[in-house]
């Protein structure tokens, strides 16, 4: 199961394909890898389909927008081939269609990969693992976690601010100037309170003996085991396989130059 994979290693497993896929400008490579990611997502995780779709649909919109833009406004290095159709003054060629689709599928790959990470990773475990595997200093990781825990408090404080304003008869703002004023009325107190809390929490942590010394013990030990490396090999191996396959079939294209 993906949710039990070591978070740091999972992070790198998700990042590497994202970076490497940036090289490709053919349709085949990102499309096949996308299908692989989907298979992994639906066989090796327990994310409910509806929940996944809810998160994935914005990516679909963004990817479609990006593909459409790339297709209409491809530069000359990528827009070879015959003209398929014209739109106003713009010509869409086979080259630009291919580039557009490729860029779209690529961003869907990023989306699917990061969803696989986000929906299966516990934030505290991620920080613990970043500290134990990636050797991030405890001062940094616990500092980040302390700040992150303020999120629900912010929401609560925003509500209090709104109620306080209402009870004193501050009307809802109208017009741009009013909006700016309103923003100032909310943003400054919220941030000021946040900073005050940050200071207090830091002092509390230090007074209870938190020194930020990297040489410390951990209650929750995060380890990288055989299963974690297996997952890494699976994801990266599939990426390499897709590239090799695409090369052999003659589809592979890197920065508008085809190989194979």
């Amino acid at each position, binding site marked *: 199961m993906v949710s039990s994979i070591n978070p740091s290693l999972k*992070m790198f497993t998700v990042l590497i394909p994202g970076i490497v896929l940036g090289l490709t400008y053919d349709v085949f490579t990102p499309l096949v890898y996308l299908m692989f990611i989907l298979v992994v997502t639906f066989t090796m995780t327990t994310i409910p389909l509806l929940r996944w779709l809810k998160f994935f649909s914005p990516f679909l919109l963004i990817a479609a927008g990006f593909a459409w*833009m790339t297709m209409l406004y491809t530069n000359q290095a990528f827009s070879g081939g015959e003209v398929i159709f014209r739109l106003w003054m713009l010509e869409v060629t086979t080259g630009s269609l291919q580039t557009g689709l490729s860029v779209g599928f690529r961003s869907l790959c990023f989306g699917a990969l990061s969803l696989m990470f986000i929906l299966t990773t516990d934030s505290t475990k991620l920080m613990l693992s970043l500290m134990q595997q990636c050797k991030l200093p405890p001062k940094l990781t616990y500092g*980040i976690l302390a700040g*992150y825990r303020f999120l629900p408090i912010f929401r609560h404080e925003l509500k209090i601010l709104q109620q306080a304003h209402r009870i004193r008869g501050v009307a809802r703002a109208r017009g741009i100037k009013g909006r700016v004023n309103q923003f100032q009325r909310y943003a400054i107190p919220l941030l000021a309170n946040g900073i005050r809390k940050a200071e207090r929490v830091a002092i509390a942590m230090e007074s209870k003996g938190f020194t*930020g010394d990297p040489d410390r013990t951990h209650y929750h030990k995060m380890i990288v085991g055989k299963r974690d490396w297996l997952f890494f090999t699976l994801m990266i191996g599939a990426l390499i396989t897709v590239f090799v396959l695409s090369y052999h079939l003659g589809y592979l294209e890197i920065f508008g130059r085809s190989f194979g």
Partner: protein
Amino acid sequence: MTKQWKLKEIVLMSVLGVVFGVIYLLFFLVGEGLRNILVPFGLAPLGYEVIYGVWFIVSIMAAYILRKPGAAFTAEFIAGVVEVLLGTAAGPGLLLSAAIQGAGAELVFAITKWKDYRLRILILAGVSTAIISFAWHLYFAGMIALAPWLLASALSVRIISAALISGVFGKWLSDQLAKTGVLRGYALGKELQRKQKHDTA
């Protein structure tokens, strides 16, 4: 690496990351609206360029408030981690772009040897962040395949957004915060106090 940081400074950067992470998500709706207007022209993704400055504001505010080498980079990186913790759908890829953006802002502060925090330097830091993050997007998002005029206009929108939102607005917000007195324990607040003492004396 963390010797130079006090714990309260790290928590402060993290809190800034949380606040602006949420604000960015709110602004995302603005980008979404612009996007819808631009859809028929096939320029939809450019809608987000306008709000890009919100992304960079954390590093510039942190550098301006804390005034230490590495503040811009560390703050942006921390903001990236916080975003991932919040479960932002963009996921771990954010860490990479955060590091690249942080480096872009840090570069400008490094050139001034972390001594100059006037408005023009903050704006310059925003602009540098915009340019460096744009170079990264050329590769990562495949924008390199776009027509040159489109790239040029996207870049200029991003630069203006970064200069205004993160440079000008970031400074204004930090100054307002310093006036409330909560920054007394940090470099910006100390400087303000010194100035006020000087004025009254």
